[in-house]
């Protein structure tokens, strides 16, 4: 059975590192993995959408619409934008910290108030929390991505994989402890 994961967020939020660690972990567990990334242009703060699929043998690198088992959501609006990818009973791990698009910043558009409610209405299960604030508590807002990764790992029952080791081998030494801590927090939020 192929499992489908979708990561959605904004450039610079660490989606790439999160998907990289997740992929390395899945590979170490012997899965075939395929991944596909669609990003906006080169300017800062563009949309990023990463498709990740794993199983015994994976053909297509794209998650078919309506078949994502889980969405790892770095930003509410981007989750809602891509919600049609989710299975009816699919899971969303949601960072509730918002990242305003330019239209909202300039006062032209209004950020939809009920994004979270709509996501909850459409998804099978939603784990939502302010991952950015949680990361801030650890002293570094950047590890927001690793907190979300922890939640994903737990909710997808991938805990048999030695994630601490994967962090040790792939993260700069000075950030290893911080990342491990962030992962633990993410797991505890399920």
């Amino acid at each position: 059975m192929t499992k489908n994961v979708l990561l959605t967020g904004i450039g610079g939020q660490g989606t790439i590192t999160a998907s990289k660690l997740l992929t390395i972990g899945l590979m170490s567990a012997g899965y075939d993995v395929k991944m596909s990334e669609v990003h906006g242009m080169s300017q800062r703060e563009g949309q990023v959408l990463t498709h990740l699929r794993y199983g015994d043998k994976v053909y297509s690198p794209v998650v078919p619409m309506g078949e994502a088992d889980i969405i790892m959501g770095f930003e509410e609006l981007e989750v809602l934008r891509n919600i049609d990818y989710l299975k009816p009973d699919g899971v969303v791990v949601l960072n509730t910290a918002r990242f305003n698009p330019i239209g909202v910043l300039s006062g032209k558009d209004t950020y939809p108030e009920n994004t979270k409610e709509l996501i909850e209405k459409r998804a099978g299960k939603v784990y939502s929390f302010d991952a950015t604030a949680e990361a801030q508590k650890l002293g570094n807002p950047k590890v927001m991505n690793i907190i979300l990764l922890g939640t994903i790992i737990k909710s997808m029952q991938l805990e048999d994989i030695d994630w601490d080791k994967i962090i040790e081998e792939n993260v700069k030494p000075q950030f290893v402890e911080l990342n491990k801590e962030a992962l633990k927090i993410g797991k505890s939020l399920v």
Partner: protein
Amino acid sequence: MKKLMTGDEAIARGVFEAGVKFAAAYPGTPSTEILENLSEIDREYLVAEWAPNEKVALESAIGASVAGARSFASMKHVGLNVAADPFFTASYSGVNGGLVLITADEPGQFSSQNEQDNRNMARAAFVPMFEPADSQECKDMVKEAYKISEEHDTPVILRMTTRVCHSKGLVEIEEREEVGIKKWEKQPLKYVMVPANAKVRKQHVFKRMNDLKEFSNNCKWNFAEYYDTKIGVVVSGDCYLYAKEVFGEEASYLKVGFSNPLPDELFKDFAAKVDMIYVIEENDPIMETHLKSLGIECHGKDVFPSHGEMIPEVIRKSIKGEEIPIFDEAKDVMINRAPTFCAGCPHRGFFYTLGKRKGIMISGDIGCYTLGYGAPYNAMDMTLCMGASISMGHGAAQVFSMDEEQDVRVVSVIGDSTFFHSGINSLFDVIYNNSNTVTCILDNRITGMTGQQQNPGTGFTAQGQETNEIDIEGLVRAMGVKNIRRINPNNLDEVNEALDWALALDEPSVIITWWPCALKVQSEEDKKNFPGSFQNKYRVDQDICIGCKKCTTTGCPAISFDKEKRKSSIDINKCVGCSVCAQVCPVKAIGKVGE
């Protein structure tokens, strides 16, 4: 050892393993990362260069091949239009060291101005083509392509697509094969393409394509897989993966990985064994038309769309009418996340000012600065292809100057990389044929749009060596432009004055804006040229702000407007201190932090 690689990384790895000595490219999504990866390889193995455009990239690779080295060029699909001239004739002259090039097509047009299908180009030029489906095939096919190139004395082209370039899959890593450099011998009959020689070489081209038919029918890249034979699916490239996802073992497959020339015998054999055929190919009905020319009945574009990717949901919808349920409530509230100039982008001040002008036609080009087209700047009236701003602008200016009814002047805007690419030829036209267009070269010291590539004006090579730097101002002067100004685009008064000055002239003029891209990692020279750049922060004094929203019309993502408080504020973490907002504030509410 297996490694997870994108298609682009796998191509670069394959090029390395094939013993290639020379690679050249011009950046273009989704092919850019191929040369970026090659540029990390040591020069003792391989020279990797950014060329000023695709034609030059291919021509330098052709020269390297004639000199005896395995050589390589890569480009996005529209890049092959620019390189079409050498491409079509190198097909005749052939190779000494193997020559492979990449076209990265864009079904779905994620970041391109059109959706052309370059399988047509391979056929029109009689150049053998591979179409990899995943990263492993990218590497394997590029290596095989070098063999074909040398055995059949031909350039070989690989057609990638955005999805193949940017998807990751596991790839088996192998050693580099050192093939060395072949001896160069004078062979003017082969390499001097005057008509008499080219006519003879054309016979070689026909023979080679004929010989390759046998290869196409028997090679491992084209194969049939039989499961249920009620449906047969003919696929090329990544469509194979999507089709497998949809049909699994409920259909049989004929996968075409080597697609020029096509495997006629395999098609006939397959057609005899399956009840009906679907041809699933991205963009044009090339295999479909071919099957029909062989008398094989099939479904293709009567069922599937001629544009976009043939991803599983598209196939399902086309064949089975399955619609994806849409969550309408999300659609109802959804707002756009439009791309914008980065905070501190040097294009902001320029376009903010230019967009306020009346009575001008703005002829645009391709790069980050194309964002000047949209709100809040609305400062672009046409954009077509790289380099066209200046020449389209010239044509328009010639007409406006004949027409007494319309009082319109033309301002052409173009980036530094785009100017070197082909804009320079267009400027020759302006100077030679003497139109009064105002040419604005937006020199942000890097190629921004495709992700920070060096170019002939930046002083560094792709592989990071310091090199000769072409000075645009000196160049333009030498070309014969008498009226030149170099300005700081962050200084709105300076931009306005320069535009006033240029528009008052009735002869060619060039304005060069000179400030680095906000994302550029500055060189020592940049630090000297732009002292203090990107060091400051600005803030809005909440007591002075009158809530007029003027600063938000600069489109800077560091500025936000609070609708309740009716005040603007600046995100200190995003602001890089370009001062544009401070210049537009009518009540001087915005000032430098610490002043």
